């Protein structure tokens, strides 16, 4: 349902995406991993229409909603107002569906979003994106700054959303083990290009992934059998 072909995005003279291509099928969960500066957030912001590509195409058969890096709340507004505004693009003000899926949000609906914990804000960000009834949920750094238990809970919500509603998920994530655990398929982005794609289980063993994250030294270390130490 999402087709990205030879995408180039520039910030002035700096090239952030340099011919990236990617496919996400309907109801599929795909992880997008890569080191800092690889262009992951740029890609997700371009998919959401927040950035204009210099060349290449982004085609999506359905609605896309984004859970942005750093949550990006409307801090002085209530949780419910944050959710309601999430449905702005389709004028959806009915929050009951989101409360059914994320019952914790109903309990905090009158609290100001800016006063919630990081995990609660992430939950609001997911709920706000769901208000747009998306066919594809693009999530930028689900785990950033959150405790492992909170991340595990959010990941379970994503799986449930995918299972029950068939919502496709594109998960941009620094935490590779989480990304590969949640998404059966993954892509590796490095220096603005997708350098590897395939089943997450296979990519977890791939040299490209290790090189993208840890550099050539890590690959050499793997070959001498000491990768475990580096990864840790």
């Amino acid at each position, binding site marked *: 349902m999402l087709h990205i072909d030879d995408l180039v995005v520039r910030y002035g003279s700096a090239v952030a995406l340099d011919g990236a291509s990617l496919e996400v099928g309907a109801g599929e969960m795909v992880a997008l991993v890569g080191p800092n500066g690889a262009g992951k957030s740029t890609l997700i912001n371009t998919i959401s229409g*927040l950035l204009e590509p210099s060349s290449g195409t982004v085609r999506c058969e359905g609605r896309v909603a984004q859970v*942005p890096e750093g949550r990006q*709340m*409307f801090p*002085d*507004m209530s949780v419910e107002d944050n959710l309601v*505004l999430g449905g702005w693009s389709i004028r959806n003000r009915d929050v009951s569906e989101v409360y059914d899926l994320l019952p914790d949000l109903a309990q905090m609906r009158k609290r100001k979003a800016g006063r919630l914990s990081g995990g609660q804000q992430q939950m609001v960000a997911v709920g706000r994106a769901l208000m747009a009834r998306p066919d594809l949920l693009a999530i930028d750094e689900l785990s950033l700054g959150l405790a492992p238990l909170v991340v595990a809970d959010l990941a379970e919500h994503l799986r449930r959303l995918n299972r029950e509603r068939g919502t496709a998920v594109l998960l941009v994530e620094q935490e590779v083990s989480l990304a590969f655990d949640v998404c059966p398929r993954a892509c590796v982005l490095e220096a603005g290009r997708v350098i590897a794609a395939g089943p997450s289980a296979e990519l977890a063993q791939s040299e490209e992934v290790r090189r993208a994250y840890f550099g050539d030294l890590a690959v050499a270390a793997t070959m001498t059998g000491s990768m475990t130490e580096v990864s840790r």
Partner: protein
Amino acid sequence: MTELVAYLVAGIALGSSFALIGSGIVVVHRVTRVVNFAQGSIAVVGGMASASLLSGRLPHGLGELVAVLLSGLVGLVIGVLAIGRRGTPPLISLIITLGASMLISAGIIWLWGQDPVSPPGLGGSVTILGASVERQRLLVLGATLVAFAALGLFFSRSYVGKALTASASNPWAARMVGIDVRRMGLLAFGLAGVLGGLAGVLLAPTNAVSFYSDLPLALSGFAAAVFGGLTSPVRTLLGGIGLGVAGSLTAGYLNGSYQTEVALLLMLLIMIVRSNSFSAEEAK
């Protein structure tokens, strides 16, 4: 005592108009980060237009309403000029509003001449604590309170009002959920025009307006807005009323020509006193 009551009521009514002008500045600044210096000129357009419409035999109520809507339209046009082009920096937009203010002054002279104009208002007076108070001044206060209450309800309860608040709070996130932040900015300019026009329509029957009223009105409105930290309509109302009362007492007990100087002095003091909180807001 009687004199003091009369000055206080006159000051509160005058300050209410400043607050309406200031709240327009606040609404625009919150959403676009642009200070709209044409806000005083819009108030003059409101006053002048209501005078023309009422003398053209439009009934009271309708004449004022059309003048307010016309002011809203002027505000919207200024918005299109100031932020219509994507990516215009706030400083350039501010200069455009200054230019628009001068253009409007020229238009006022062309349409209405240079003489001060005062349309008929609510006639008669009532006695409060022994002081005779014009009913128009009470109307100004009442209409201002209603306008601020409506503004509060609009921002807190309506879908569009919430989208405006969201655009002010986090423009990036607002764009992400599909809100057209630039369109919200234009709406803010239009709303500011309505508020400025309302101020002019209410003020003109007791304080005649002319093309050169724009600067004192803009300065007073800006001082009230600064008192509200350029973010809070309620504090802007309090600031405007404080400023109006100070000006009225100055005019009553000292000299009427010092009113603008008092506004400038108060604005300076407020900015010095509040500079720490402004720095903190900037740092955020």
